[in-house]
C-alpha cells in the first residue's frame, strides 16, 4: 500500500491516501504496532502518528490516529478502512511533508496548569495571536528525552522541576535559554537564572511548616517546636522522601537554614539529620502525595505538617481553612522552570511565550490563581496585600534555603536507600 502526499488545506491536515482525501473529522481509529525509531521519526513528521510509548532500545509501541474520509468516491467504508490500515505497514516509505505544529506548552495538570493557562497562555494568545496547545505529563524526564532522542518532539515549552532541568540540560534534551530574549531580568530571583543555562524559573514554591489555627491557637514557631511533642501533642506530617526531610531535621537541630547543605555535604551531617529524625520517628505520619498532607491536617490526623505552600493556600482559599504557614521557622524553597525542548520547531514562539510569562504583569496575575509566588520580584509592585501575605516574599525567602538539587542529584540514590532502610526499621 502506497502513502500519498500529506497536504494542508484550509488549516486542516488532510492525508491523501492513493486518491482519497481523509480529513480530521469525527471517526478515529487507533492501531498499535511497532517499528524502528528512525523510521518512526521520519513518519511522525507527516502528522499521522501519535506515539504512545517508546522503548529506548529501538522498538516502540505506537498509536496513531487516522481520520474518516470526507468524500470518498469509489470505495465503501470498509475498503477505505482497509487502505488506511495499510498505512501501518507502509510507514517505511512515509513521505516527510513538514507540517507546522502549534506551539505546545506542557505542565503537570491540575490547579497549576489552570493557573498557567489563565495567567500566561490565554493572555499571551490574546495579545500575540499565537495559538497554543496544551499537554500534561507527570514530570518524568524520560518522557521528554524519549521525544528528543527520536527527533519526534510534540512539545515545545515544558514545565520542569530543577533536578530534571539540571539533569536534562546536562544530557542535552533542552535548548539553552537565549537570555537576551527575556527583556529585563534584573528583578528576577537569582535562582531563576542560575540553576541551569537551559531554564528560567517562573514560580517559587516552598516546603513550609504549617498547622491549623482553628485547632491550635498558640502554634509552633520553629522546627524545634515541630519536634517538641510534649509542648504540642499530636502526630507530625512529613513527606516520605529524604529530600526536604533531612534539611528540616537539621534545622530542628539548630542548623541555620543557610548552612543546611554545607552540613549535609559532610557524612557526619547526614548522620546528624537521621539521628534527629530518630527522635521524632514514632510521631511521624508520612505522606506521599501533596493532597494527603492537606487531608491529614484538615482531619486532625496530624497536629502540624511540612507541606507545599501552594497546597496550603489552595485549602485556605477553596475550603476556607485557617492553615497558618510559619515562614520564620525556615522553609525549603524551589522553583518550577520553563525549558524548551532541543530542536523545537517553534523555538522563536517558545521564547516569546517564556518572555511573556516572566513579565511583571503575567507574574502578578499568576498568584491569583494558585498559591505560588513570582520569580520576577517586579510583580510584587502593586500586588494585592492579601495575596502578598500568602506568598514567599523576599524577606521570607531570606529566612529559607533554596533546595540544592545539585546536591540531590549526586546523593539522592544513596540517601533514598538509606532513608528507606531507616524508615523500615
Amino acid at each position, binding site marked *: 500500500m502506497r502513502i500519498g502526499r500529506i497536504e494542508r488545506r484550509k488549516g486542516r491536515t488532510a492525508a491523501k491516501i492513493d486518491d482519497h482525501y481523509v480529513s480530521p473529522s469525527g471517526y478515529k481509529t487507533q492501531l498499535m504496532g*511497532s517499528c524502528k525509531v528512525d523510521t518512526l521519526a521520519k513518519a511522525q513528521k507527516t502528522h499521522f502518528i501519535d506515539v504512545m510509548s517508546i*522503548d529506548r532500545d529501538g522498538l516502540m509501541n505506537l498509536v496513531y490516529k487516522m481520520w474518516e474520509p470526507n468524500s470518498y468516491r469509489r470505495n465503501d467504508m470498509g475498503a477505505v478502512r482497509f487502505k488506511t490500515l495499510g498505512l501501518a505497514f507502509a510507514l517505511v516509505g512515509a513521505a516527510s511533508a513538514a507540517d507546522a505544529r502549534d506551539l505546545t506548552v506542557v505542565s503537570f495538570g491540575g490547579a497549576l496548569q489552570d493557573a498557567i493557562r489563565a495567567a500566561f497562555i490565554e493572555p499571551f494568545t490574546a495579545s500575540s495571536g499565537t495559538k497554543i496547545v496544551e499537554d500534561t505529563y507527570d514530570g518524568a524526564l524520560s518522557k521528554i528525552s524519549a521525544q528528543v532522542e527520536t527527533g519526534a518532539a510534540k512539545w515545545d515549552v515544558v514545565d520542569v522541576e530543577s533536578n530534571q532541568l539540571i539533569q536534562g540540560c546536562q544530557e*542535552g534534551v533542552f535548548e539553552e535559554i537565549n537570555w537576551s530574549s527575556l527583556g529585563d531580568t534584573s528583578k528576577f530571583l537569582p535562582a531563576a537564572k542560575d540553576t541551569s543555562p537551559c531554564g528560567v524559573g517562573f514560580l517559587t514554591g516552598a516546603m513550609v511548616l504549617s498547622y491549623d489555627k482553628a485547632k491550635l491557637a498558640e502554634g509552633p514557631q520553629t522546627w524545634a517546636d515541630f519536634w517538641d511533642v510534649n509542648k504540642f501533642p499530636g502526630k507530625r506530617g512529613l513527606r516520605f522522601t529524604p529530600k526536604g526531610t533531612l534539611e528540616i531535621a537539621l534545622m530542628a537541630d539548630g542548623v541555620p537554614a543557610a548552612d543546611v547543605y554545607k552540613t549535609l555535604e559532610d557524612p557526619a551531617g547526614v548522620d546528624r539529620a537521621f539521628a534527629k529524625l530518630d527522635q521524632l520517628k514514632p510521631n511521624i505520619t508520612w505522606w506521599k502525595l501533596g493532597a494527603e498532607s492537606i487531608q491529614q491536617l484538615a*482531619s486532625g490526623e496530624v497536629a502540624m505538617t511540612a507541606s507545599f505552600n501552594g497546597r496550603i493556600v489552595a485549602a485556605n482559599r477553596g475550603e476556607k481553612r485557617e492553615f497558618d504557614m510559619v515562614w520564620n521557622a525556615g522553609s525549603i524553597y524551589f522553583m518550577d522552570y520553563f525549558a524548551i525542548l532541543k530542536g523545537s520547531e517553534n523555538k522563536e514562539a517558545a521564547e516569546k511565550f517564556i518572555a511573556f510569562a516572566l513579565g511583571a504583569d503575567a507574574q502578578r496575575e499568576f498568584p491569583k490563581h494558585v498559591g505560588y509566588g513570582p520569580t520576577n520580584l517586579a510583580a510584587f509592585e502593586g500586588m494585592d496585600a492579601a495575596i502578598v501575605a500568602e506568598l514567599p516574599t523576599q524577606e521570607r525567602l531570606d529566612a529559607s534555603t533554596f533546595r540544592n538539587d545539585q546536591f540531590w542529584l549526586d546523593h539522592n*540514590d544513596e540517601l*533514598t536507600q538509606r532513608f*528507606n532502610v*531507616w524508615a523500615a526499621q
Partner: protein
Amino acid sequence: MPRITRSGIAAAWLLTPAVLAAVVCLIVPLAMFLVRGVSNAEIVNALPRTLTSLTAWNGEGLPPDEVYADLASDLRHAAGSGSLGELARRMNFMVPGYRTLVMKTGTQLKGDVPESRPALISIDKRWGEPEVWQLLRLESGRWTDSYFLAALDRKRSADGDVVTVQPDQRIFVDLFIRTFVISVSVTVLCLLLGYPAAYLLALAPRRWLGVLLVLLLLPFWTSTLVRSTAWIVLLQNEGLINRILQGIGIVDAPLPLFANRFAVLVAMTHVLLPYMIMPLYGAMKAVPPDLVRAAGSLGANPVRAFFRVYLPQTYAGIAAGVLLVFILALGYYVTPALVGGPRDQMVSYFIALYTNESLNWGLASALGTLLLFATALFYVVFSRFARVGAEAR
C-alpha cells in the same frame, strides 16, 4: 500425540496474529528488559579507548599517563555527543558524587584543556585517587553483574570480591522477604474468606444467585485505586471506624489501623478476593451434591464428608485461586503505597522508584527480573504440587 494434518497446518496459520502479538508485546520487551539489568552500555559506549588502555594496568597505584590521555579524549568526545550524561548517571549509581565529577570534567574538557594527567587532576582531585580507576577497571566489561548484586544487597570490593553493602544501605533482601510474607498472608486470608463465600454462591438458589454475583462483581469492577482510597477513609485515626469505636466508648485513643501491615492486609485481601472466589465457585458448581449425601448415607459425619469428599473435589479451584491471588499479590504496588507504612512497601514500589525517580533502570530491571523468576519458580513448584495433590485424591 496428535497427527499433523494439512488442515491442521492451515488452522495453525490462524494463530499467527496471536503469536506475533506475543513476540512483539511480550517476548521482545521482556528480553530487552532482562538485558538492561546486565548491560554496561553507558560505560562501554562512552569510554571505549580508556577501557582498552586500562586492561594493561595491574590495578595498583594509579594508571599510566596514556590512560589519563585516553580518558580525557573519551570524555571530550562524550561531552560533544551527548553520552556524557548517561555515563555520569551510571557512575553516580556506584559512588555518590561521581555524577558531578564526570559532568564537570566533561564540560571543562569542551574548552581548551590539554588531555593529560595533571590537567584532569587539576579539574578534580578525585582523578588522582585510585578508587575511581579501580571502579572503572571492575566495570570495563560489556556486561555487568553490579545491578543484580545491588538488588541482593551485595557489591564488588576494589579487588573484585562480592561483599555485603554497609548496614544502612541493606534493604532488598528484607524487601523480597517482606513481599513474600505479605503475598502469602493475603493468599491465606483470601482462601479462608473466599471458600465459604464461594460455597454460599454454589448453593444459592437461582433467584439469589444473580444478586450475590453482582455483590461480588461490583467491587471487582471498581478501580483498585478507588477501593484502596476508600480504606484510607475507613481506617485512619480520624476515620470512620475509629470515630465509631471512640463514639460508643469501646476505645479511648484511636486504634492504629492505618499505615501499617494490618491496613495493607485488609485492603489487599479486599481487592484480591474476587480472584479467589471465581475459580472456587467454578470448581464447586461442578461438584455433584449427591456425593456428599452419599457419604452421609454411608455413615460419614458432615465434617468427615466435607474433608474426605467435598474438599478434594475443589482442589483444582483452590489451586487456581491461590496461584492467581499469590501472583497478583507479588506485584502489588498501589494498595501498599496508599494504605501501608514505611515497613509495608513491596518490591514494585522500589521498581517504580528506580524507574521514575532516579532513572536507575538497570537496578529496576534487576529487581523486576528477580521478582519474575520468583513468580515463575513459584508457578512451577506450585503447579507440580497441585498436580500431585489432584492425582492423590
